């Protein structure tokens, strides 16, 4: 099980989830993707869309940077 990181704090909806899906497609089943994103629309939509499309959202963690979160997704 490998661990990968993706920063989409500079992306806007819907490219936030598009970029997430592109990265997830490169992973093997069981691998972890840590997605760094901003609150508001990305935080609302990315974990929700990931679950809808069959991925596991393991946790959502606030970072030390204000308004930035890490969504941990397992493929």
């Amino acid at each position, binding site marked *: 099980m490998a661990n990968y990181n993706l920063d989409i704090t500079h992306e806007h909806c*819907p*490219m936030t*989830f*598009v970029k997430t*899906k*592109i990265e997830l*497609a490169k992973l093997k089943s069981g691998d972890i993707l840590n997605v760094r994103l901003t609150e508001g629309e990305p935080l609302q939509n990315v974990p929700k869309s990931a679950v*809808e*499309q*069959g991925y596991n959202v393991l946790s959502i963690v606030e970072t030390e940077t204000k308004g930035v979160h890490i969504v941990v997704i397992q493929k």
Partner: protein
Amino acid sequence: MDFNEEQIQRYSRHILLQDVGVEGQEKICNARVLIVGAGGLGAPIAFYLAAAGIGTIGLIDGDTVDLSNLQRQIIHFTEDVNKPKVLSAKEKIERLNPDVKVITYHKLFTSENAFDIIKDYDFVVDGTDNFPVKFLINDACVLAGKPFSHGGILRFDGQTLTYKPGTACYRCLFHAPPPPGAVPTCSQAGVLGAIAGMLGTIQAAEVLKYFTGAGDLLTNRLLSFNAKSMEFRTINVHPNSNCPVCGKHPTVTTLIDYEQAVCEIKR
């Protein structure tokens, strides 16, 4: 394949779909589709398949653009009159999506060249306006084990059926072409231009469903609609054991060029 930044943007609305996604878009980008006829049906089919990023699009049509085509053949523009249709369509496809490789055949699709041309493609789309070529496409694809989409329009009506080896073919439903002149072509009887867009777009969607595996194809189902009542219906059909080409005792084992009504042959 790795998509570059432009491709990620261009295909983002496909990538977002659960039933397409990155893998489905890769399949679309690797697909090779032959469109027979660059007219009313071929125009929207080519446009949507090009927009979707189909890797290779083959276009076969022996005609040139006529002013009377422009009411429905939306891939051709006023300045294209007298230009070979395949060339006019190629130019538009390349402007829409430079990722697409376009191969043109400025000739008729005949029993002589059918097998040789379709062998280079994964899927064939019938965008023709006459029965002889519709039957020829069916027979060539059935005999070669090639999936295809049948489509036909007239006046306010359209019908389409998708074929995969083992499912009902066009001849399972219609054994042979009607006698020349029995059914008018749209060049004789007229057709509402938008009908071409309605049906061709359904055919393009079937092609994309075929490559991505999304949903259920129109196999063993004939879709027909009438745009005056705007009623759509699907008729369940089955492989016919008496079918002349795919039945138990086939009588059609080689390709046939049926006779066309004289008025269908231009110039």
